[in-house]
């Protein structure tokens, strides 16, 4: 199978600030103890219900966290890492890691990232003694991330440290070693850990996207029509490392990640008729949860990964079903002569939202997994692809017809209010939440063909991730 595993990363908190001032080391050890305590508290009070309003990221241990001026996020600089090995690969890694880390931190908007081209003249430092704090202070940085990359027998060792510019002390450090094949993973890991420890935020730097693409331009066989296959692809959250994971030369669409990120369920026409396949992308094996019964579409894994909701026409009409991943315990959830389609799970697995046209137009409805509590929640001219946000937000994003095309709207289930986050730039469809609920991936035709984009939950920071062929139906891993 494809090599999308993150490689082996061993990391440890490196408290060895050997040549640095002892006070920095002392400060850091204390910070770790406090952070452990803080995360224990967070774990203990994890809410079962996603009713809580979007909370501000409140620092739980102010002293240890980098802070900015009152009311503004800390200003951060991420200069190139210092390459301790003269070879080209290590030198490039030193630059790549800094660039990617800057982007990862910028993506969550928790830090104010100072543009990297404004500090090219500040000399790189390999240790705290060499950090030119006055220069960083002059630049207005509250913190600076300094690191080194060294080639080793096994691959590469990356050490990174966040310095508090005012205190001239190390606030945080990490050391990673592993393969040199994809240095981006070290930046992604550092970014996630920094967001976790400094902002109590679950970052998405190590998450993946899955989507469908016709970029191979391979013709579909067994037809005289001019048709091109679509295969399932995965990429990093930022669009890097796009890789194909299906090779069946048919139509493959609507991928859905399993919660553990090891499997992808999707609609495949491999046999000529639409059915649900599960590809275990590391094991290189496949499962067929519907056991060849009927025509089946649009699988979505339950939040615990044990069940799959999907649409099937097996009983003569498009209805919503749930089945265990191994094919047992098939349950039919809807029973209506109208179209019922496009299920999505609530975060606690107790409800599904789906699209139904039983009132004459496609609208979003919600039903309990036991079939009770059916209710309509959208009042659009046409709404489809509901996707339920993770906690703490309790929202459903969907595509709404707003003119000739579609825009992404977000419905707050608690308040019933709907807001719009795209505004008629092309057609915008198939929203998919990031696992921390702060971003969405979606398909847009704003750049011509169908492409995958990401945006923040407020519609800002739109990024185009794909450019080759048509790319549709994205899904974001946990």
């Amino acid at each position: 199978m494809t090599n999308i595993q993150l490689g082996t990363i061993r990391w440890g908190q490196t408290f060895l600030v050997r040549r640095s001032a002892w006070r920095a080391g002392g400060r850091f050890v204390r910070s770790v103890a406090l952070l452990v305590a803080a995360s224990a508290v967070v774990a203990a009070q994890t809410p079962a219900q996603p009713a809580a309003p979007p909370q501000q990221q409140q620092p739980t241990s102010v002293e240890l966290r980098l802070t900015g001026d009152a009311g503004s996020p800390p200003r951060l600089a991420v200069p190139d890492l210092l390459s301790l090995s003269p070879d080209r690969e290590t030198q490039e890694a030193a630059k790549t890691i800094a660039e990617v880390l800057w982007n990862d931190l910028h993506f969550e908007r928790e830090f104010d990232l100072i543009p990297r081209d404004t500090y090219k003249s500040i000399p790189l430092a390999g240790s705290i003694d060499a950090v030119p704090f006055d220069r960083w202070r002059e630049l207005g940085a509250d913190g600076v991330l300094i690191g080194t990359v060294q080639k080793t027998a096994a691959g590469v060792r990356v050490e990174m440290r966040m310095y508090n510019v005012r205190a001239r002390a190390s606030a945080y450090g990490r050391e990673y070693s592993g393969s040199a094949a994809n240095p981006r993973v070290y930046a992604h890991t550092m970014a996630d850990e920094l967001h976790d420890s400094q902002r109590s935020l679950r970052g998405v730097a190590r998450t993946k996207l899955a989507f469908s693409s016709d970029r191979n331009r391979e013709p579909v066989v067994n037809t005289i029509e001019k048709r091109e296959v679509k295969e399932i692809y995965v990429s990093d959250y930022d669009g890097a490392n796009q890789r194909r994971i299906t090779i069946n030369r048919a139509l493959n669409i609507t991928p859905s990640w399993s919660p553990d990120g090891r499997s992808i369920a999707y609609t495949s026409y491999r046999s000529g008729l639409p059915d649900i396949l599960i590809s275990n992308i590391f094991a290189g094996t496949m499962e067929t949860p519907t056991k060849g019964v009927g025509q089946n579409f649009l699988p979505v894994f339950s939040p615990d990964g044990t069940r799959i909701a999907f649409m099937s026409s097996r009983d003569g009409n498009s209805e919503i079903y749930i089945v265990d991943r191994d094919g047992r315990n098939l349950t039919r959830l809807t029973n209506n002569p109208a179209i019922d389609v496009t299920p999505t799970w609530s975060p606690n697995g107790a409800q599904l939202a789906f699209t139904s046209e039983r009132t004459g137009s496609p609208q979003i409805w919600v039903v309990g997994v036991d079939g009770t509590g059916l209710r309509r929640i959208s009042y659009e001219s046409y709404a489809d692809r509901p996707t339920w946000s993770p906690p703490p937000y309790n929202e459903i994003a969907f595509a709404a017809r707003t003119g000739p095309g579609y825009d992404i709207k977000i419905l707050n289930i608690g308040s019933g209010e709907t807001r719009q986050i795209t505004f008629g730039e092309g057609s915008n469809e198939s929203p998919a939440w990031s696992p921390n609920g702060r971003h969405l991936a979606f398909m847009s035709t704003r750049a011509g063909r169908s492409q995958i984009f990401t945006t923040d939950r407020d519609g800002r920071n739109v990024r185009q991730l794909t450019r080759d062929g048509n790319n549709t139906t994205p899904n974001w891993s946990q």
Partner: protein
Amino acid sequence: MTRTANVSMVLMVMLAVTIGACNKKTPPVVRPQPPVTGNTTTPPSPPRPPDPITEPMPMPPEPLKDDSLTSNSLDDLNRDSPLKPVFYDLDSSDVNADGQQILQANAAVLKRYPIWQITIEGHCDERGTAEYNLALGERRALAAKTYLVSLGIAADKVRTVSYGKEFPFDAGHEDNAWSKNRRAHFVITAK
């Protein structure tokens, strides 16, 4: 049309009987060959030219068409298909009056070739969402199938499959393209 086919079948049988009677050496295995060679090509061992047989059939090219439908490969058959597509209104899976006429013509063809297996593909234009269109395409194909079955076509000869908006016939982004893409498309899969 059916009468024409029946007449030519009768003539074929007559011809075969004649041949069998006059040429004792050939085994009397008279396979009901499809009316491939209904024109004036000479039979393998003709005791007499079949002129009088073909002569009294002043039929327009329709029998020839029948012949090609039987002799052509599936791909050729589908390339110039005798089964015409049915088109739908926006967001609709109702078979309208035009669609009913087309389906009646398609049913007439299918009744002449009852061994054919067909697949009805349901397609949608890009103005619906990708996900909903999978269901809408399904419904369009089923609506066409239901109508065919009501006209006497055996349900087990007709398979349906929805492609949503994944395989448009016209890649354009205006009314003309969209109207072509909202269709039930017929594919002959076995004959």
